[in-house]
């Protein structure tokens, strides 16, 4: 269980290109931070580095007292641009697989399906869903998985105003339960959040 996130003097490089250095950030349970900055500043790379998918050039990323490898394996969820859903499989098959893979209980899955109003979409193949519907499927996976630290990359973009508000409620619930959220955004989050700007 991740209780805190501490990033100290982080420097990242991606594809031979230097992104930023000297980045510091601490996040405690119940806190949310919105990472902003122009395109190409390294917002996604920051999230990937926290998830362990990009090795830092310098600096450290810690998860409180937890061992980083164990914390990443069971404590965080990365919601990226790509959702990993297979177009030819039904929404139900994909959601069932991923929630079981994440270690979610069947009850949590049912609650998430109800919250995100997915029950009528479940029988459809993923390729027949709209971008917003697919994102709701990913959000159901996020909500059901028992993971403390949410890493969200542009989570709002395919959602309409109503679902943005609902997603805000979902985030607020997660924070109230002791969760942590680090989100890369262009539009402001629908809940009050600390901001961290990465300069170009």
């Amino acid at each position, binding site marked *: 269980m991740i209780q805190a996130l501490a990033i100290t003097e982080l420097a990242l490089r991606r594809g031979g290109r230097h992104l930023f250095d000297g980045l510091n950030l601490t996040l405690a349970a119940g806190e949310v931070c919105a990472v902003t900055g122009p395109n190409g500043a390294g917002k996604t790379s920051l999230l990937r580095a926290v*998830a*362990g*998918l*990009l*090795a830092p050039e310098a600096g450290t990323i810690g998860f409180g007292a937890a061992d980083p490898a164990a914390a*990443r*394996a*069971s404590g*965080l*969820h*990365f919601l*990226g*641009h*790509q*959702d*990993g*859903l*297979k177009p*030819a*499989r039904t929404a139900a*098959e994909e959601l069932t*697989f*991923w929630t*079981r*893979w*994440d*270690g979610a209980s069947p009850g949590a899955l049912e609650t998430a399906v109800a919250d995100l109003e997915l029950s009528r979409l479940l029988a459809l193949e993923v390729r027949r869903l709209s971008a917003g519907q697919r994102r709701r499927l990913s959000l159901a996976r996020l909500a059901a998985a028992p993971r403390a630290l949410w890493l969200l990359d542009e989570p709002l973009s395919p959602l309409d105003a109503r679902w943005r508000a609902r997603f805000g409620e979902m985030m607020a619930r997660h924070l109230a339960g002791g969760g942590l959220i680090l989100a890369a955004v262009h539009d402001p989050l629908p809940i009050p959040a600390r901001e961290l700007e990465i300069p170009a």
Partner: protein
Amino acid sequence: MSRALVLLRREAALAWGRGGGPLIAVGFYAGVATLMPLAIGPEPERLAAIALGAAWVALALASLLCLDRLFERDYEDGALEGLVLSETPLELVCAIKCLGQWLATGAPLAVAAPVAAIALGADPALAPLIFLCALVGGLAFAFTGGIGAALSLGARRGGLLTAVIVLPLFVPPVIFGGGALDAFAGGLPWQSGLALLGAYAAAAVALGPVAMAGACRNALT
């Protein structure tokens, strides 16, 4: 463990459906086996001489062709990241993917192999041994082939590159399987060939996932 089973079921289902799955693999296999007599000539005695070898090589090629999308699709659509961020070690994930591949395409190919060999003129008494060799060889092909598929992630012309990487690694199983069949057909002891094939398959199952996991991590980070 239940998590591994859930993944195995998904992988087998995906491999089964991946672009036609076993149907395409067996179709390709049948196509190559059909080209052989067209290139070599229809005389039964000439065909019978190469029937076993031709069936065995065609099997290796068909296994190779199925590897193309083993990791590539998960890499492109983000599923690989989801599989990495889990308590299940990536080595096990890679092994399960290859196992699913083997169940969905290796096993159907093993059923097709004796048919192709007999159609080319092999002795029908060989059918059980051909099936067994194709089954064990398919395991070796899937696990060594997975290394090539994982290494060529993110490369230009990944499919062709996979073939160039994997074909030299297919040399021992092709030799051992072909040798066992050849020995059996010639009335010689064939067990050593099958045992060597099994040993290579076992080594590939044990060591291949380590290389695959390293290659996947490298491609993602």
